[in-house]
């Protein structure tokens, strides 16, 4: 139980650190960048009240001390107020609300697919000490070492632009007036089709890592005595492999925490390539237009999403490893 509280404590602390970082990030910018923000604020289609609030948020309102700025920022945050988007003139939370499902859907499905298949392939390759791996290695290095956006372009050109197998822009067929966003067959089909290439990019880029990681852990786990005991017991091969795999999956889950932020960052780049209507494409637009409230809001949401994924991985680990439950 103490372990769980300790971990939860870490997440609270991490969330707080992210919030604070977010506050200071804008204040660390050079002076002329801030002037830039201010001019954006003035020209934006927002009400004078919102302007005042934003000016306060960025420390451009000299009447407030840094501390009181910080606390009003925290207070706003607790009320779910992330400010107003200067480029869109709507609350940041509204923008996030429309973007977040797309990103979660994309990253979530791609990560689950990559993790499940990568782990399974890794188990088989490791267990059989298969030569298959050596043949796979050049391919795996390619996917691991090439930035996401290059891989995205590769898929976009081959399967999208030239191959015409999948659509390669937007989240659904925006040009079709008959398509009504919602829970209907045509819309969902369109979403899945449009998501295929971005999801494939993210999955391909990360699956090699899971395969190699799982294969390596599998090979080290197979050197453990308890795996040999399982063989000595006369258990069938697949059960012996199961004992090894069941133990080998634990480090793989811890590695999940190490790589999820890389995957999320990569999928941001992927969204940009495919003009996918998620947070990644949105933050790129926000950066180009200097929309700081939106940038900060997205940054915060993405960090929270990564922390959430970490928490899930942590819980899975505790559920799967009896030792983690007991310690301290």
């Amino acid at each position: 139980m103490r372990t769980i509280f300790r971990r939860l404590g870490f997440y609270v602390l991490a969330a707080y650190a992210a919030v604070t970082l977010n506050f200071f990030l804008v204040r660390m910018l050079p002076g002329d960048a801030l002037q830039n923000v201010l001019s954006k604020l003035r020209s934006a289609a927002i009400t004078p009240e919102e302007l005042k609030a934003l000016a306060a948020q960025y420390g451009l309102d000299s009447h407030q001390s840094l501390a009181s700025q910080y606390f009003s920022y925290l207070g706003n945050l607790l009320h779910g107020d992330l400010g107003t988007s200067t480029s869109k003139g709507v609350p940041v939370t509204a923008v996030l609300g429309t973007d977040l499902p797309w990103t979660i859907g994309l990253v979530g499905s791609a990560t689950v697919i990559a993790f499940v298949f990568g782990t399974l392939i890794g188990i088989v390759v490791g267990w059989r000490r298969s030569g298959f791996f050596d043949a796979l290695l050049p391919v795996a290095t390619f996917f691991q070492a090439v930035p996401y956006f290059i891989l995205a372009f590769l898929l976009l050109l081959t399967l999208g632009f030239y191959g015409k197998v999948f659509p390669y822009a937007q989240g659904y067929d925006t040009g079709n007036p008959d398509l009504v966003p919602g829970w209907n067959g045509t819309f969902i089909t369109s979403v899945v089709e449009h998501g295929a290439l971005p999801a494939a990019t993210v999955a391909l880029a990360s699956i090699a890592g899971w395969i190699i990681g799982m294969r390596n852990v599998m090979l080290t786990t197979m050197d453990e005595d308890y795996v040999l005991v399982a063989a000595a017991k006369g258990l069938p091969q697949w059960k012996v492999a199961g004992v090894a795999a069941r133990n080998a999956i634990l480090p793989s889950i811890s590695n999940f925490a190490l790589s999820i932020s890389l995957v999320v960052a990569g999928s941001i780049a992927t969204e940009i390539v495919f003009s996918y209507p998620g947070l990644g494409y949105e933050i790129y637009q926000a950066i180009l237009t200097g929309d700081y409230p939106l940038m900060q809001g997205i940054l915060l949401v993405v960090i929270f999403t990564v922390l959430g994924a970490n928490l899930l991985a942590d819980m899975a680990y505790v559920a799967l490893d009896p030792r983690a439950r007991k310690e301290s």
Partner: protein
Amino acid sequence: MRILRSTKVVVGLSLLAFFVLLAVVGPFVAPHAPDWQANTTSGVPQPPSSHFWFGTTQKQEDVFSQVLAGGRDTLLISLLAGLIASALSILIGVSAGYFGGVVDEVLSVLSNIFLALPGLLILMVVMKPLPPQDTSNPFLIGGVIALTAWAWGARVLRAQTLSLRNQDYVESARVIGERSPRVIVFEILPNLLPILASSFIFTVIYGIGAYVSLTWLGVIGVPSGVVTWGTMLNVSQASGSLISGWWWWYVPPALCVAGVGIALALLNFGIDEIVNPRLTSARTGRGSGVKFRLGLTPVLQSAPTKGDAK
């Protein structure tokens, strides 16, 4: 050297040497300056020809010359990012593992928080407003990239330091009163080298990915006249080369980025196998015609023994 016996390391190193050479001498041997323009009024890029090996851009610049010149900043910045991040990860990871207790708690939480930060996203936000005199400073860019990249190495180094600290020889060095910096430098660091090498290479790969992505996005402004692989991709994409079929404009820089990445990844694989011999394919018995399976020791009734006579 033992390390050169691995095919992966040899291929990786040769490939890497090629690109490093390219980065160093490329700009000097390039037939034209990166911003040189062919004397023509055509607004359409020319495909590869004997005159322009890799064709031209829309502004009639020589793609071949740009590719030769475009690697320098990319490699320099990612190398700096790798060095700075490694230094940070040694500082933080080794201290956390060596001193333990509260130091470890604080530094571990710090590393874990940085691990959860999506680096590219933060870099995008931070880099965009930087003025050109800052973005052309490789140390600054490399340093900022390193700030988002040290945590992974720190975590691995901490774990390894922790296990080294409990080894007898480190314990005895402490007991006889060696001072901490001495123990760390002489007893612990040498044993961290393989892991350090691995995390350094990992960070350089990350650095290349980050820098190329940022320049491709146009988030890092480059002074006029300077060309990097990432900006080539940026300009090429913005000019519509993807839909216009001007493949010679974007394929060479993309291949270069991929090539450097693959070289480093191969090197990393090789080092991994040397660090952890259990991962080598040698133990699969391939080439010897013997298949090793757990719980089924192979039997070759070939050895001449007196048992054969019976």
